[in-house]
């Protein structure tokens, strides 16, 4: 992702398997034009220690939110290791498009607050529609 971003808005890391994060970011870009709020990473081919190191290297400049795909995924486990010594870090696993859209559009003043609201929106977006 580009390093250019809106300076007064929180940024976040999105990390997951394969091209998961890049795919979600492209959808965010198409809908809002604000995909530059995300640093997109993949865990493909990486050992656990390498994933952790890459996450740490991107947690600079006020980035304090990490979105991951699977709760059981290696990216989530690596992020939890990072969070152990970064108390301000907010980790949201199971991210979906609705979550990221809410995050970039959030009026919240803190990244943590924006992430919490986004997680709620993402959870609520999972709906089973059946014809009875």
């Amino acid at each position, binding site marked *: 992702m580009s390093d250019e971003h809106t300076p007064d808005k929180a940024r976040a890391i999105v990390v997951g*398997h394969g091209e998961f994060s890049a795919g979600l970011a492209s959808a965010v870009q198409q809908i809002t034009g604000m995909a530059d709020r995300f640093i997109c990473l993949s865990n493909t*081919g990486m050992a656990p220690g390498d994933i952790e190191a890459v996450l740490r290297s991107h947690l600079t400049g006020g980035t304090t939110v990490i979105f991951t795909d699977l709760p059981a995924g290696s990216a989530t486990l690596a992020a939890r290791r990072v969070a152990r010594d970064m108390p301000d870090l907010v980790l949201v696993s199971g991210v979906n498009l609705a979550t990221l859209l809410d995050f970039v559009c959030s009026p919240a003043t803190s990244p943590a607050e924006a992430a919490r609201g986004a997680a709620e929106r993402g959870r609520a977006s999972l709906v089973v529609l059946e014809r009875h």
Partner: protein
Amino acid sequence: MGIFLYRIDDRLIHGQVVVGWGQPHDIRFLVLVDDLVASSDWEKDLYRMAVPPEMEIRFADVQTAIRDHATYAADPRPGILITGEISVMHRLVSGVKAIGSVNLGGIHHRAGRKEKLRYIFLTPDEERELLALESAGVEVTAQDVPGARAVPLAEVLGVDNR
């Protein structure tokens, strides 16, 4: 059913294990054999939170795993036993003669290792250790996910043993 798969995977518990193998084979318990993890409450909590509620996770150091292997094997549910290092699996196999096959699920790049497959990187010492496993009668294959082909060790190492 007992242990369905003996896997070497440096990510230990992760998506391929819990979902990739776990769901199609209805895996109900995992045994994570790692001396460091077994001795750390924080590490154990980390992995406990990564598995779904229907899947039990047990932790053991190598000696405990050797001692308790018969219990794992007698469990009526299907399970997966995981080590993060080849040397750990080798120690386990040395103490448990009932282990007939070992799966290489993910051994990633680090200094001194060379790429053998997209998800398998080995040092010369690790290659020798895997060959020693096969010499002891254990079938060693590489297969990251159930839908992939199980690659025999000779092919992984580029050894023509025809």
